[in-house]
C-alpha cells in the first residue's frame, strides 16, 4: 500500500506541476482557467488518496465541498472573459517595468517644464488664494 500511495502521490504532484506551468505560460485567461480546474481536481484526488491511505472517512465532507465549489472559479472567469491584446496576458520582466517607469517619468518632467509648476501633483495652490 505504501509504495502505491507514493507512486500515486508522485503522479498527482507531477500532473499538478505541469498544469501550474501552463497557468504561468497563459497565453490567455481561459487557458489559465483550464489549468486551475486541473489543479483543483488534482487536490480532490490527492485528498481521496490520503483518505484511502489512512482509512479516514472524516475527509469525505471536504471532497463534497470541493467538488461543489470547484467549478465556480472557471465559470466566473469565463463570464468576464474579454478580448485581450496580444502580449498583454503575461507578467512583465524587471527591465520592461523599468523602461515603462522611465518613460512615464520623462513624460512627467516634460509637462512640468512646460508649465513651470513643479508641485502640480499635490493639487497646486487653491483657486482665488490671497498671496
Amino acid at each position, binding site marked *: *500500500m505504501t509504495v502505491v500511495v507514493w507512486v500515486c502521490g508522485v503522479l498527482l504532484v507531477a*500532473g499538478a506541476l505541469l498544469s501550474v506551468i501552463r497557468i504561468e505560460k497563459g497565453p490567455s485567461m481561459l487557458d489559465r*482557467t483550464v489549468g486551475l*480546474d*486541473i489543479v483543483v481536481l488534482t487536490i480532490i484526488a490527492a485528498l481521496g488518496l490520503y483518505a*484511502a491511505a489512512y482509512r479516514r472517512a472524516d475527509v469525505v465532507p471536504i471532497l463534497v465541498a470541493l467538488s461543489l465549489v470547484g467549478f465556480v472559479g472557471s465559470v466566473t472567469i469565463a463570464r468576464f472573459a474579454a478580448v485581450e491584446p496580444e502580449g498583454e496576458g503575461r507578467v512583465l520582466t524587471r527591465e520592461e517595468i523599468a523602461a515603462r517607469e522611465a518613460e512615464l517619468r520623462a513624460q512627467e518632467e516634460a509637462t512640468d517644464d512646460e508649465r513651470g509648476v513643479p508641485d502640480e501633483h499635490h493639487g497646486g495652490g487653491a483657486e482665488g488664494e490671497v498671496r
Partner: protein
Amino acid sequence: MTADDWNRVADVASVVCLLGGSLLAFAAGVGVLRFPDLLARMHAGTKPQVLGLVLVLVGLGLRLRDGGAVWALVLVAVFQMLTAPVAAHMVGRAGYRTGKIDSRTLEVDELTRDLSAAQEAQRRRRA
C-alpha cells in the same frame, strides 16, 4: 473465502483504481501543457474530471467500506458530473467569443451555423 480474503481483494481493487485515477490526473497535466490551443487543452483537462475522479472515489470507497462515507462519495461524483459540463460550456463559449478558437481546426461548427442562421432570420424579420 473468508472475510479476510474479501478484504484483501477489496484493497487490491482499490489500489488499482487509485493508480488509474492518478495516471489520468498526470495525463491531464501533460496534455494541458503540450496541446496547442484552448479546445485541445480543455479536452485534456476533462480526463480527470469524470473518469479519473470516479476511479479515485471507487478506490476510496473500496478502502473505507463504510455505508455513510460511500454515499457521500456518490454525492461527490454526482456533483462533479453536474458542474463539469457547466464550466466546460462557459469556458468554450467564452473562448469562441473572444476569438481563441480557430474554425479551420473544427470538423463540426454548430455554434457558427446557428448564429448565422439566427442573424439571417433577424434580418428577414426587419425587412
